[in-house]
């Protein structure tokens, strides 16, 4: 592989990481409250409200059922409004974040819902209000699942970011398509795949280690 190709590869890795982590962070900040809202308004939740719950669930499902490639195109006006352009790496972050948020909201919802009801009752019994329960019980107790879910979301975003090449976002997927596939440069294709494998394994490994440190639910020696 030429030096030019290596430079291209390095900047593609950077673009992929930027898209993945920027969209991931947005989905975490927006998805976690959505997950909390789903659990809180659900049956037997802290602020049970079936209609709000159904509406929220329907909106989330709607976003989740649109194929990403279509979302990418459909959101072009919104992207232009936010970023100022519909092309490039930063422009890709908008549809990526919007696709990842409802995805992550569902993952967070599952972890939050699994928190033992007895713990919520115990904190209510000591005079805690809803915020106390969210701050001291729901989020800390679900944290291992919240972090594990975030890892899954990041890995999914790495895959989705490849499609963002369609709007000139760059990144590893774009590189693989344009050079590896369309120009028959098998070496580039293999290099991209290897880098992707390393990225995914790395993110998963770091995520797993963090979860391990956070999880005190079982005793370990």
């Amino acid at each position, binding site marked *: 592989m030429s030096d030019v190709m290596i430079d291209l590869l390095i900047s593609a890795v950077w673009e992929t990481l930027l898209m993945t982590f920027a969209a991931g962070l947005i989905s975490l900040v927006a998805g976690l409250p959505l997950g909390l809202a789903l659990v809180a308004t659900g049956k037997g939740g802290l602020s049970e409200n079936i209609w709000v719950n159904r509406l929220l669930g329907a909106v989330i499902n709607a976003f989740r059922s649109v194929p990403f490639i279509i979302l990418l195109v459909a959101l072009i006006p919104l992207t232009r409004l936010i970023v100022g352009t519909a092309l490039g790496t930063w422009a890709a972050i908008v549809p990526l974040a919007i696709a990842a948020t409802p995805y992550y909201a569902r993952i967070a919802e599952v972890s939050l819902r699994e928190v*033992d009801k*007895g*713990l919520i*009752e*115990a*904190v*209510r*019994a*000591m*005079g*805690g*209000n809803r915020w*106390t329960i969210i701050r*001291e*019980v729901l989020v*800390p*107790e679900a*944290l291992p699942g919240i972090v594990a879910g975030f890892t899954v979301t990041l890995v999914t975003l790495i895959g989705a970011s490849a499609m963002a090449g369609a709007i000139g976002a760059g990144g590893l997927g774009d590189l693989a398509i344009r050079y590896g596939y369309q120009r028959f440069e098998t070496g580039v294709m293999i290099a991209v795949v290897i880098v992707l494998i390393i990225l995914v394994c790395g993110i998963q490994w770091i995520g797993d280690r963090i979860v391990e440190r*956070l999880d*005190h*639910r*079982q*005793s370990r020696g």
Partner: protein
Amino acid sequence: MNSHPFLSAQIAPLAPADAVVTLSGVRRRFNDTVALDGISLSVRKGEILGIIGRSGAGKSTLIRCLNGLERPDSGEITIEGKRIDGLPERQLQPLRRRIGMIFQHFNLLSAKTVEANVALPLKIEGLPKAERMARARDLLELVGLSDKAKAYPAQLSGGQKQRVGIARALAARPALLLSDEATSALDPETTRSILALLKDINRKLGLTIILITHEMDVVRSIADRVAVIDAGRIVETGTVQSVFANPQAPITQRLLEGSRPRLPEHVAARLNPAGEAIILGVDLSGPYGQSRFFTDLADALSAGASLIQGGVEHIQDESVGRFFLSLPARDANLVERVRSTLQAGGAHVEVLGHV
């Protein structure tokens, strides 16, 4: 027999002046099941009240009404002179800080250390960190777990977890401690040590404790008074000694069956209205001096009675006994003499039947 008139739901018992908790006519139903069917009860400051009943009798609903985790459909609940039924959640929250609660499954937060768990009620109260940590350390010392302050709950045994639960429940210096089957998930030895700790706290701090349980042994070893609940009603209340020595309600008798002497199966199966031998059940408690009872019993035995089954046991510092005697039915004089002698001494004598 089932329920004394003065215990019936419609008439609220007169609350003693030092009552910490008073319930009157509390009702609660879930869809078409009645969980509480007119509960009236009062608990004095510094006493330990045991509420016992089978599962589904309504005890969990009852204890949850006391700190507003459950709302009664009707009836009055007063805690430390304040009506709490019908209060909105926001006004219940500060009141709950006056009431500690411990649970069957401990309900400790797994993500927090032992000391952070104990300090949580104080954090909710808004105490500065240094103060709440100091108090948490004191409480951990009280429950004998000073060395586990930095451990996580998952690293503790069941008994240790419940000790942390107790420390946490005491953190905000409550006026009342509610115990919801706190020893039901523990082995007998650990149960004894947890009960001893509760009794100790009750004495040291003068803390009022209400505990619900399905285990008679729990009530027997630490409660001052017992209330028996069945199908959402209090069917019997009294001091532990009196209820154990002479249970009135059939459900109480059934709950007690496991832990006290009873008529052997083969005799009980043959009971009929007109056999050759008459079977007497004798319950004794309190003032009946044991030596006096055994002298009377010896007299009866030498006169022709025979002892089928019996024993004396201790409920806290009082002894209670239950004996079954068989007497020849044709000797009506003897039957009458044994009966009146024992009764005169204070025992409760009942003709169970003939064999």
